[in-house]
């Protein structure tokens, strides 16, 4: 392959010429680490490749309180993806992304990525409130609710 010259793909390490040897060495470590990445991490990474942790990004704009609900029962798409299966199991009723993350004990950023991917493929559905309320009405209801605690 390499003998073919112009058809050969540039090996990845060639892209490090700007910063030199240090990066090359770090890459070795990264490659080593990569072998131990759990599937969900790869999963989440593909859903939101440019994710900045803590910020809503990607095609589906999810925040901590975005509500999702399972659109189907776990199926072949969840085989070998226990994290996704757990998300479906916890989203039988509408749940927030934050609650799902806490319940399945995974970082919320990763869960956000997986949830976004699962919405995209139709396993989860996003849901809005049945009765959307005005901010002022919410505040008054919250006040009443808090007072009666």
């Amino acid at each position, binding site marked *: 392959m390499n003998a073919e010259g112009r058809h050969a793909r540039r090996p990845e390490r060639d892209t*490090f010429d700007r*910063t030199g040897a240090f*990066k090359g060495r*770090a*890459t070795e*470590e*990264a490659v080593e680490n990569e072998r131990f990445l759990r599937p969900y991490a790869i999963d989440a990474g593909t859903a939101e490749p440019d994710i*900045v*942790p*803590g*910020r*809503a990004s990607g095609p589906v704009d999810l*925040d*901590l*309180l975005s*509500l999702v*609900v*399972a*659109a*189907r*029962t776990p199926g072949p798409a969840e085989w070998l993806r226990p994290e996704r299966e757990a998300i479906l199991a916890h*989203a*039988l*009723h*509408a749940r*927030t992304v*934050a*609650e799902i*993350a*806490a*319940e399945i*004990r*995974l*970082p*919320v*950023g*990763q*869960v956000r990525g997986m949830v976004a991917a699962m919405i995209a*493929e*139709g396993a989860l*559905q996003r849901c*809005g*409130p*049945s*009765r*959307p*309320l005005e*901010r*002022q009405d*919410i*505040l*008054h*209801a*919250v*006040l*009443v*609710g*808090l*007072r009666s*605690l």
Partner: protein
Amino acid sequence: MASVDSENRTGAQEAIPQAVKIIVAGGFGAGKTTLVGAVSEITPLSTEEVMTEAGYGVDDLSGVEAKSTTTVALDFGRITINQDIVLYLFGTPGQDRFWFMWDELAEGALGAVVLADTRRLDTCFHAVDFFERRQVPFVVAVNRFDGATAYETDEVREALDISAHVPVLMADARERGSAKDVLVRLVTHVIDGRRPALSG
């Protein structure tokens, strides 16, 4: 290939509440999780966010190899207000360097509680600044710690340079009644602030 599945919607029939949030901020150890736990209907849940340190102030993101990651714990509780509204209380990560999470937490929040620890008042400066800048309505609750010198709310107000319209109140984050009073005071403050000013 994949058809849109419109008829088979698990859970689509149930009433879905609106999720709203209040932020509980303050320095590390100021009692945020304690306050959340005092009023939450569930044991506060904890999730974490993995953040990439090199992602901030470093332009070259072409490789992941030089990034180191830190996890930030995020605790929250829940209060079901009625069938239409569920209130979440989020404790902010204590360390200042996790600002990126504050931005998201503040987005759409009804308001915020800044818990002040009189032994380390300076630890809540950042929170006060942040909410003022983001125009998130807030109250300052001075958490009473055993063995701490008792301060008057006015002293705290002065020390923190808080404007006169921001409520400052004493609280005991461990007490449900006290934590509840803080939240009630906050929501009252938010409602008052939203009312069009009558005085010209």
